[in-house]
């Protein structure tokens, strides 16, 4: 093993150790109004402001609900009433900024400001709707799914 490789290996172990306890956290609920829930591993978790999010979480809003999420790469996602948003796939290395983010809007409305992942590389962020796939290339936009 070369010295530089050994050093990189030691460093990556050190970085793992300093990562916070909730290393699986990928984002946080910053805004929560009305009825908002998170479906996680088949259970409904309350989606209070401050709740940390994980891969495969499904965020749902009721008729009077809306929710705002900041992802670890500074992407901002916010959903209006009667919405269902799945965080399907997420990986982000804050040192290199390489990553991958795929989310699905199954129903409702969503506003997006993309973050570091989309800025770093083309085709690294997508939003799926039941009928289409949106390829995000560094942008602000809104998406709606019709009933």
């Amino acid at each position, binding site marked *: 093993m070369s010295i*530089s490789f050994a*050093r*990189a290996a030691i*460093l990556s172990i*050190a*970085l793992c150790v*300093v*990562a*916070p*306890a909730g290393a699986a956290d990928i984002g*946080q*609920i*910053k*805004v929560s*109004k009305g009825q908002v829930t998170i479906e996680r591993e088949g259970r409904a978790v309350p989606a209070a*402001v*401050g709740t940390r999010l994980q891969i495969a979480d499904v965020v749902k809003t009721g008729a009077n609900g*809306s*929710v*705002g*999420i*900041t992802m670890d790469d*500074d992407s*901002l996602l*916010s*959903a*209006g*009433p009667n*919405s269902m948003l799945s965080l399907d796939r997420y990986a982000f290395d*804050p*040192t*290199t900024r390489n990553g991958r983010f795929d989310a699905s809007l199954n129903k*409702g*409305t*969503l*506003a997006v*400001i993309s973050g570091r992942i989309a800025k770093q590389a083309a085709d690294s962020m997508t939003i799926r*709707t*039941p*009928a*289409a*796939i*949106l*390829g*995000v*290339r*560094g*942008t*602000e*936009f*809104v*998406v*709606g*799914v*019709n009933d």
Partner: protein
Amino acid sequence: MTEAAARAFALAACVLLGACASSGTVVLLPEKDGRPSTLAMKQGDREVVLTEPYAAANATPLGPRSYRSSAGEVEARFGSALAAQPSRAASFTLYFIEGKDEFTEESKQVVDRVLSEIARRPVPDVLVVGHTDTVGNDAFNDALGQQRAESVRSALIRLGVPASDVRAISRGKRELAIPTPDGVAEARNRRVEIVVR
């Protein structure tokens, strides 16, 4: 039914029944800083690319159809989603005194602004990012940047920021404030960025 026949059928349904319904809509919004932006809507092998503010597309049985939306339409349909958008991240940069592990005088004042930004947010999380100049290889600079970020993280914790809300990372020499060739000592690249979100 072949795909061509299916499309012809869908088209006929559109025309005869007014059933050319959109199953989903996307609208590109103006960027805050006026940068160009791009978004693609794909249905199978059919794609439309949006590049202008308020450029929009509907997903239809015939594939994506582009149209021009407006601020009014966006507000009417997406007002609630937009109103729930979290505050954007705020970024602050601290510089070190040449050859010392100590902030410059101006940077000490920046710390006060960081603390008031943290206090302003309901559930702040803080990312401390260490940057280096180009002296040394990536592994060396990644470790050095991490060390810088950790020392600032500790300082924020001493100032009362909960430890669980602050994370330290390193970008090493990947994001130079002042572009230089490799191996150049440059004080303005030796800095720590604090991102509050």
